[in-house]
């Protein structure tokens, strides 16, 4: 079965997941993003790659940060951007996901940027568009359930490459609520494909999938339940956000105990390499998964991540719907 995000020539037509994308495609996106970082420095922060195109931000789940960065990215590419918060409109009236998509397609959309609470929802949309001969409309997954957040994964790779250059010599720790994290899943596929030889998943058993060691087919993956084991000697620490609702449903006893076992403090950070970088997809819970001294410290690259995120999203959108990069 063909990966629905690729056409018959193996080219990217949608960005649904980093699972199954080749090293060439991943690096191609990162390379394309490089010049876009300079666009923000210009006096006129725009390039005309998506001029005349309509980008629909379809957010079935609340998000301010991701939606805003997609909006900025599309506007810097000169696209027309329409924001729809569907959880407060049609879905609440009982309209099905595909009916919503059909209606917006009829408004001549060129791209859907989709966030949805269900894993796989963007696949359903892409398959529906293909089945109704509308594959010229591109779908970008902006986060689906626990499954994937590919642009976040890509901007994380961009950030790592910016600070560490070579992926093939790195030790990387992903720390926190891996079970519920679409960010972690996208990071894992990208890290493995780009050749990172030591990937560690760190968290309590209640926040890791039962088959955590088989989340990706890679011999570099290792599961650690102790933060010390996970952090010792690593070059990159990728923290995950801990949702407050995890305290319900018997997953964790309290935020305090979580912070004590898995919170990133300056003492724990000292276990990593002296030049290790600290990343976080935001929004952060200070004092729950990360200590303010680390979040604001000189090893944190959390704000550059946000800046790079715009360039990476410009790269993805222009690659799918635009001409060649400038």
């Amino acid at each position: 079965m063909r990966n629905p995000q690729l056409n018959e020539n193996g080219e990217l037509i949608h960005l649904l997941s980093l699972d199954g994308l080749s090293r060439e495609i991943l690096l191609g996106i990162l390379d394309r993003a490089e010049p876009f970082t300079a666009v923000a420095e210009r006096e006129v922060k725009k390039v005309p790659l998506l001029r005349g195109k309509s980008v629909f931000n379809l957010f079935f789940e609340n998000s301010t940060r991701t939606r805003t960065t997609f909006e900025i990215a599309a506007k810097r590419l000169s696209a027309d951007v329409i924001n729809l918060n569907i959880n407060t409109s049609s879905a609440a009236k009982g309209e099905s996901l595909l009916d919503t998509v059909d209606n917006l397609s009829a408004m001549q959309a060129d791209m859907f940027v989709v966030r949805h609470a269900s894993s796989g929802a963007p696949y359903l949309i892409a398959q529906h568009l293909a089945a109704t001969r509308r594959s010229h409309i591109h779908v970008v997954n902006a986060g689906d359930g626990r499954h994937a957040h590919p642009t976040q994964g890509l901007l994380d790779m961009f950030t790592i490459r910016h600070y560490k250059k070579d992926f093939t010599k790195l030790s990387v720790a992903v720390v926190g609520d891996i079970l519920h994290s679409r960010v972690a899943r996208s990071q894992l596929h990208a890290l493995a494909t780009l050749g990172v030889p030591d990937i560690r998943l760190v968290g309590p058993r209640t926040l890791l999938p039962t088959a955590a060691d088989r989340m990706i087919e890679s011999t570099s993956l290792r599961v650690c339940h102790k933060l010390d084991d996970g952090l010792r000697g690593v070059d990159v620490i990728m923290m995950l956000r801990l949702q407050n609702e995890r305290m319900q449903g018997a997953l964790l006893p309290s935020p305090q105990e979580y912070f004590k076992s898995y919170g990133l403090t300056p003492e724990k950070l000292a276990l990593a390499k002296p030049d290790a970088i600290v990343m976080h997809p935001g929004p952060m819970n200070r004092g729950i998964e990360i200590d303010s001294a680390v979040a604001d410290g000189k090893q944190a690259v959390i704000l550059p991540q946000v800046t790079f995120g715009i360039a990476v999203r410009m790269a993805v959108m222009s690659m799918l719907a635009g001409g060649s990069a400038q």
Partner: protein
Amino acid sequence: MKIEIRNGRVIDPSSGLDKPASVYVAGSRIVGVGETAPRGFQPEAVLDATGCVVCPGLIDLSARLREPGFEYKATLESEMAAAAAGGITRLVCPPDTDPPLDEPGLVEMLKYRARQPGFAQVHPVGALTTKLEGKRLTEMAELAEAGCIAFGQASVSIVDTQVLMRAMQYAATFDFPVWLQAQDAHLTKGGVAHDGAVSARLGLAGIPVAAETVALATILQLAAATGARLHIRRVSSAAGLALIRAARADGLAVTCDVTINHLHLCDHDIGFFNAHARLDPPLRAPSDRDALAAGLADGSIDVLISDHTPVDDDAKQTPFDEAEAGATGLELLLPLTLKWAAERQIPLAQALTKITSGPARVLGLSTGCGCIAPGAVADLCIFDPAAKFTVSRERLKSQGKNTPFLGCELTGEVRYTLTEGHLAFSADKLL
């Protein structure tokens, strides 16, 4: 009507008969099997079974007909046509209709509606508890009188184990069989796929194998304690099957079945969130699927079921976790039995026991059902074991077009189906 079925290979799994012969039918009964017609037999119709197998009509221990309550998903008429096209002449329907089959009137109505020439015989399973809520017992004796052949909960678990034990005690009082699916309600909560590598990768909430084994341990212990006649529906895991084997070794008379989907598929078949692979119980790991296929072959599993569950397109064209569980299956039961037999090199006569004499035995049907012999009911399935076809929406007669086998090429096409001597289906479209 007197019918001669000529030139076929007659297979009767219950007796081991497997030879070229004619089958002679008069009225609702088989009156002869052999090379010469019974004395004075003058056929009014002759069915040519050249190249075909003539076997007892198939018996399916689980097929949702969706009546009453879910007529937008399927009707008795549409599903009976599908059953006939699938060679099925008898089927058991679970009690999760709307309202559930917890009152004699509902059962009588269903039996009455289904009593039409050419329709498969319908055996309802009555609800074990009212509204399937797991709180109060149904009037089992009354329901049995109305036609229920067993009592169960469909896929709804009884959370309160005291109620479960009493329900089994009460059923055992009258020697009514209890049919249960083993699924711990708490461990299943929120889950949509097998808790394994695929769900971890796709970010789907998992249902652990322990959901089955924990519930099975409870049910098996209660069956031993109460003496209830137990049938376990829809075993899904190797570990679950091992518990059933162990209970049997300890002397418990328990039977069980597996679905055509769990026999052939596993969680990898979810692919890119294919909602047709959203099933209950979930498709499990490849090793579970292999253990189930082996268990069906070695006799640990008694029966293969279609687990027919027609679902409307709207309930499947949603994200995977929102999709309604279930797959259509009446028309796939035979070809998927043959597929299993071919893959495991099981003789045809032995494979067919799983969909004929095996389910007849679980149903406790007296002699004369699920077999081919003079005097037996003329429920017959005549199929071409070599004919290939591709599963497509257009080909399926069921109102439910939902199956993970869409697009698959399968072998084994039904030519004729006779229910009680009545030609219920003909691929030739002569009648």
